[in-house]
């Protein structure tokens, strides 16, 4: 495609929007994720953690010593609710409508996230499968490394807009694109 640079206004992208074809660096907004918060009763922390890590179709995210988020992008809320309520010594609450799930990936992902969080994301420190609650773009978020260059970010619904805008702003230099994903 030839671009007529002479007639391309400097604010063209700002008005008609930046490119939306996925680039290597891409931010996916997951349409309908299932997110449950799981709390362990006193003394049951280890047993609940073990059950969560062994659960199928559910990815556990660490929040605090007796608190986790259980995330699923493959099965429905009822299946997850049934599975989690079978864990002895745990209280579970469906948070799917209260949280937004985004996935950021690409070769520059660490450089982009490095401007959003104050946590060392080196793979030797923040390993694959690791997750933690932290400030991300000034909001309380749960960040997880799901691949070598892939991170999942869970934010409260009311913060999703501002976190999304800030992530896009931080990624603009690296050509970060965005779109919905299932």
């Amino acid at each position, binding site marked *: 495609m030839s671009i007529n640079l002479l007639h391309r206004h400097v604010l063209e992208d700002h008005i008609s929007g930046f490119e939306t074809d996925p680039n290597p660096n891409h931010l996916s907004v997951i349409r309908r994720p299932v997110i449950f918060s799981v709390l362990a009763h006193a003394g049951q922390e280890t047993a609940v953690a073990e059950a969560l890590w062994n659960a199928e179709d559910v990815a556990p995210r660490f*929040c605090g*010593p007796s608190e986790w988020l259980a995330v699923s992008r493959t099965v429905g809320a009822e299946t997850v609710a049934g599975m989690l309520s079978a864990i002895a010594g745990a209280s579970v609450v469906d948070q799917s409508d209260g949280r937004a799930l985004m996935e950021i990936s690409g070769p520059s992902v660490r450089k982009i996230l490095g401007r959003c969080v*104050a946590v*060392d994301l080196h793979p030797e420190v923040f390993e694959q499968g690791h997750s*933690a*609650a*932290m*400030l991300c773009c000034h909001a*309380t978020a749960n960040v997880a490394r799901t691949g070598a260059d892939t991170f999942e970010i869970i934010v409260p619904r009311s913060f999703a807009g501002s976190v999304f805008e800030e992530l896009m702003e931080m990624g603009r230099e690296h050509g970060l694109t965005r779109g919905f994903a299932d």
Partner: protein
Amino acid sequence: MASLITCPHCGTRPKEEFSIRGAAAPKRPSPTAKDEAWHRYVYVRDNPKGRILEYWHHVAGCRRFLVVERDNLTHEVFGVTDAAELERAGADE
């Protein structure tokens, strides 16, 4: 972000993630204690310089109350413990 606190649950984090909740050394009197004891606890506080114990709430992380031992002059941090663990250890003694 110069002030780094190593949370026992979350690892090293900047001070922006915490809310400082005051001195941890004064012992809370019992609810039935005399007014003088409560007055002393609420209003008569030392203002020490040097090594102090403080409650830090990890608001943006694990949301646990921590006890941070630090120097308020140099901001050298000597130790960070979960407040509940410290309480338990104190009860065992």
